[in-house]
């Protein structure tokens, strides 16, 4: 049994939240999310998802792009779950 993904993020277009900045840090070999006086070091999958949150690409297209890039399928639920958490943290907002 799988719980349905949160419908509030079913069709949205995510972008990086106001005041946050996503960038690749060579010294840390990781994407980081910078915000006032702080930083989150992202794991590889979080980095891959967030770098596609450009404010123009809908969530379905992000999932499709990730599945293509990593030659896999069935990422939909994980991506939505992550974006749900990320929007709770204000890392992303919905256009």
């Amino acid at each position: 049994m799988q719980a349905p993904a949160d419908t509030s993020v079913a069709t949205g277009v995510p972008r990086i939240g106001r005041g946050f900045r996503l960038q690749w840090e060579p010294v840390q070999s990781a994407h980081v999310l910078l915000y006032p006086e702080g930083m989150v070091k992202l794991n590889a999958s979080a980095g891959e998802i967030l770098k596609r949150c450009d404010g123009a690409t809908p969530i379905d297209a992000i999932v499709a792009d990730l599945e293509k890039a990593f030659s896999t399928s069935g990422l939909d639920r994980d991506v939505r779950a992550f974006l749900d958490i990320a929007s709770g943290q204000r890392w992303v907002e919905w256009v």
Partner: protein
Amino acid sequence: MSVVAPHDGHRPVGPPLWLLAELTYRCPLHCVFCYNPVDFAKHEDELPTDDWLRVLREARAIGAVQCGFSGGEPLQRNDLEILVAEAHRLGYYTNLITSGIGLNEQRIEWLKEAGLDHIQLSFQDSTREVNDFLSSTRTFDLKRKAAALIKQHGYAMVMNCVIHRLNIDHIDRIIELAVELDADYLELANTQFYSWAHINRDQLLPTREQLVRAEAVTNRWREKLGSKMKLFFVVPDYYETRPKKCMNGWGNVFLTIAPDGVALPCHTARMLPGLAFPSVREHGVGAIWYDSEGFNRYRGTGWMKEPCASCPERERDLGGCRCQAYMLAQDPAAADPVCDKSPRHAELVATVERLQTPRADAPAMPLVFRGRKESLATERQF
């Protein structure tokens, strides 16, 4: 900040994620709790613009990502916009830590254009009278104007108010003001006792009763405001029984450059005896961070004495604050006396107890306002 593994001789030293550029000790305010060194006026030879630009580049190259511009009042430097622009170009997240004095329409536009990401505005209190008294100036209206400018230019409004015995009972009004100014974050930071606040300690330490009341008021507002505004309440170390993991570990994440170019693991570390901190005028930032004696001395846990050395919690707080250990136990390698395992903790408790009820027969001590004249006159270095 993500935590970088502390140095213990086996694990590598991580990058200095946070660069704090203390651009100047000059400040139009005269706050009684200022954390600048008491002898600041003896270090007035400020780094020129080109040296700051080099420091920004060198620190970024070894992995610094957050850059704070502070002081003194950083707006006193008229090259602030040049430095912010370079920091932004290099990929730093740029933070301005300001009293708001000197912020006007023109400068905030320049700063925005330069790529400034964030502004933290300090208030001394919610009312004009107390704000102006505690900073010994007439600045309250200027600060309100600065707050409005910050909002108008699309910045999050992050307010910091230093709390102590003389304003803690106004905390309800302070929070109300933050709501009025549409603040997104409000940090209610109790004074910690270093530098000028240490001189004024007996007048500034809140009583236990005041603290309990203030926290209750803060919690009521948290419930009322929900996610609209985040409230942080920082208790004075003196009321704790475990020390803070100061600066998230010595030479672990933070790199401070003082106005004269001296590199420090924190802004008060200059006080510690027997340590020569390197200057960016003579050394590269990478060599300073990784190889200097000053930055390596208290990294990790290898320097610890008992009770820290065998303490099961030693990795959690790394023995607390070296400056506090020096100020309260006269030994920078001692356990921070805030810890109740410290043999000197009882003395701190006695001090706190003594200050619960000001004695009528005790001589009234005047508050010492931070000032150039006072700084030059003092024998103290910190």
